[in-house]
């Protein structure tokens, strides 16, 4: 039975501001899940805390709205316990790269088979528009009394440095393209990171919808030149095709260089993808083969009468005096 988009909507009241870029991301996620015909009860959307992190409540799969900055470890725990679930993580840029930066870096090192979507609006939306870690030094939004005092980080480069095996960028008002990226990210074998440009009309009056559409950025004919372009259309290929160290390194380097483009000429699409790095699940299974056939969530632990199913006799024998 094919899943309809409407099957993925909930009746929970959505309280995002009118015109918020989060709506586009939400739609794209729902479209992607419908297209992939996932089983909602085998799918979990996990988030942190922030405007964007309210998303799970609007998606009719299992939803886990966690703590500020902790979406990744919560999601990792769920996936480790039940590797057969489809786990998608969503959250804000502050959530992911401010308070959550430590998990961001270290989750890259694990390469669990999940997708992480960051709503990148360059502000802390829910706490009223303070600068987030992706906002550039000196930028001033209407929510800031003074220009941003911190340098901004390049989330794509940070993701590459942290070892994510799929690194991409989407734009929340290009819903179809974004939907495709989400599908790719979910299908990717390994940890996929997807940075999404998300206008916050309430606090960020610099990177607005109009900005990305090309406001103030005219071509010689005086026409608006959009500030984004598609990597796929530019002949860029971020995929590592063979399990080859050299190709891998080249593709990583290419992705890093590409990630420097931002502003008037901002690439969207897949910067890097490498499925030749074993996932954490595979690494665990290589240590204990039963992890694959009998992962934690599938394991029975007790007989019907409550006596344990584990047999520790051998271990006890080792401890016998």
């Amino acid at each position: 039975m094919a899943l309809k988009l409407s099957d993925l909507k909930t009746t929970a009241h959505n309280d995002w501001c009118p015109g918020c870029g989060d709506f586009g991301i939400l739609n794209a996620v729902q479209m992607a899940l419908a297209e992939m015909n996932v089983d909602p009860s085998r799918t979990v959307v996990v988030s942190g805390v922030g405007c964007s992190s309210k998303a799970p409540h609007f998606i009719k799969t299992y939803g886990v709205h966690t703590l500020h900055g902790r979406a990744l470890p919560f999601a990792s725990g769920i996936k480790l316990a039940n590797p057969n679930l489809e786990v998608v993580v969503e959250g804000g840029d502050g959530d992911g790269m401010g308070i959550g930066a430590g998990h961001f870096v270290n989750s890259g090192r694990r390469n669990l088979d999940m997708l992480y979507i960051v709503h990148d609006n360059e502000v802390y939306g829910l706490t009223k528009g303070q600068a987030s870690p992706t906002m550039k030094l000196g930028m001033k939004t209407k929510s800031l009394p003074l220009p941003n005092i911190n340098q901004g980080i390049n989330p794509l480069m940070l993701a590459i440095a942290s070892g994510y095996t799929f690194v991409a960028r989407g734009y929340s008002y290009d819903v179809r393209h974004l939907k495709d990226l989400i599908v790719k990210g979910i299908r990717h074998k390994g940890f996929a990171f997807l940075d999404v440009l998300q206008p916050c009309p309430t606090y960020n009056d610099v990177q607005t919808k109009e900005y990305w559409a090309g406001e103030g950025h005219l071509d010689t004919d005086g026409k608006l030149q959009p500030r984004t372009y598609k990597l796929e259309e530019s002949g860029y290929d971020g995929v590592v095709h063979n399990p080859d160290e050299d190709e891998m390194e080249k593709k990583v380097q290419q992705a890093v260089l590409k990630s420097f483009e931002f502003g008037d000429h901002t690439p969207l699409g897949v910067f890097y993808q490498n499925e030749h790095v074993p996932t954490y699940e595979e690494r665990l299974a290589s240590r204990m083969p039963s992890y694959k056939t009998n992962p934690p969530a599938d394991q029975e632990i007790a007989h019907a009468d409550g006596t344990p199913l584990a047999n520790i006799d051998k271990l006890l024998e080792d401890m016998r005096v």
Partner: protein
Amino acid sequence: MKRDDFSWMIGGVQGSGVDTSANVFAKAAAAGGLSVFGKREYYSNIKGEHSYFQVRVSKDTIRSHVDTVDMLATFEEETIFRHALEVRAEGAIIYDPDQDTKRLDQVPTIEADVRATLNGELAKAGLSPDVRGILELARRRGVHIYPIPYNELLKEVGARFGETSLSTLQRMLNVMAVAASFALVSYDENLVKEALKKQFRAKPKVVEMNVAVVAAAYEYMNQKYAGSFAYKLAPVKVSGETNLFVRGNSTVALAKQLAGCRLQTYYPITPASDESEFLEGHAEIELDGSAAMENPQVGEAVALKGKGNIAVVQSEDEIAAVTMAIGGGFAGVRSSTSTSGPGFSLMAEGLGYAGMNEVPVVVTLYSRGGPSTGLPTRHEQGDLRFALHAGHGEFPRLVLASGDLTEAFYDTVRAFNYSERYQTPVIHIVDKALANSDATIPKFDVNKVKIDRGLLVKGPVTDAVNGEIRRFQMTPSGVSPRPPLGTKGGVYWNTGDEHDPLGHITEDPTNRDMMMDKRMGKIDLADKEIPMDERVNFFGPAAADITLLSWGSTKGAILDAMEWLKEDGILVNFVQVRLINPFPTEYIKGVLAKSKTIVGVEMNYSGQLTGIVRERTCVPVEQLVVKYNGRPMSSEEIYSAVKLISQGKAPKRLVLKNGA
């Protein structure tokens, strides 16, 4: 007070095999049917600092260490300087005469204060500040000194095996010290050799050489000192029941396997990580074959899927450790994390989230010397109040604390049962004194272990409405059926915000009251349901002059002390609180109502349990015996303290200070 046991100590530089020697000693003793209790003291350091191990053995049950040393085995100078004066009159010191001229000021690892004190004593006695001097001082106090030419003997053994490297041979110094000790008390040489075989099982060559070392040491000591030491250690008949020789960390790990814990997260920290490493080393789990017969479905699963397993994951920090474990709980897997103080401090927010979302998760808290980094390898029971109140706002949690290795085992299983039954975090405190102590205990009775998964829903949910599950629906008990994430038949949500039965955010005040009552009410439910024998232990006569009130690892020392106090005719009983929350208020009130002098015994500064007792019962506990110098309480200390109290000579807050 009459001790009928043997207290043996060995010391040496961290990394030089002190642990191994103590293990061999203990195993050899245990193999002879003796009761063994071992205690290790070491610095927060990798190599080079002094560490020592004290092993107490007896034919009767013992559960604690004593301050007295009957025999000190040494093979380098620092141990002699530090411990020679702890040996009792008529006790023994075994040492290497090559060390005779080593001077106190040549040992940089001895703290300036300690050095100054020793120098003072030696000067007062007119002795030289070297090994010779300190041993002479011991001798004057009645200690027997037994030189043994380690290197010479080792070289002889080496020659027989074609091993000439002195540094290789010296790796057996420790075993030689053990053998020399046993020889002095005429213990069965074969038991020592058997213990070695067990210890070095995987390496036959090593066993062979070590066995030769044992023989050489026995031969030398018997020849030279036969009959010179009065105490004799004889094996006892081993009863039908088998004993185990275990360490706290491994006990807990074992119980986690049995309890069905299938996700363990951790960030390395002393003294917790040993437990996770044990689990990691035994990540694949044998399943009970009888399953197949009894329940064909389970049997099929076993056959099909093979072994069980536990995913042990080293996380980037303790915030990740606890939140990952909660993630496992969400997925319906028994999950836990183990840590000690600094790591636990980082878990406060995660605990509250688990409480809010009614997720079962077990945190094993190995309590060590605080505050802050504190005394990472030393002992304290300083985290009780924090465990009770960690995390902002109010949410239910159960806190239990084990008193010995046997309890640690069964309590671990209970912790998981409680956490699933009440769908909330459980903090299981195992203090450092248990984590790192080794002892013989009766074999665990696996048949006594029962797994209770509470209202866990297995299989598809059938009562979802419009595909939505009322995960947090109101029920008379306050506990709702819990289908894990991934359950077919519907979906639901979770959030750290206050939420409605579906798990969606709501700020409605009426719903809020209902949800708070639901969550907090589970503690009242637990209070009603959990039988008293899982919550408190009571020892001694129903009525007594003195009632000791304590928790955690002090149990052993208190019980041992009580036997001596009984001999002295002092009537003492002892209430050990194991489940701190929900607190067994009525029971404790009842006991204390019958008490004359109530004494709070705790290894912390402020008497934390005592405060809790006052809070819950309004009974003023006015006599405290506390200790916070980083060393565990010995049975002797407790004995003396209670004696003082019984004589009315103790200050209201008696601070114990023994230990090196």
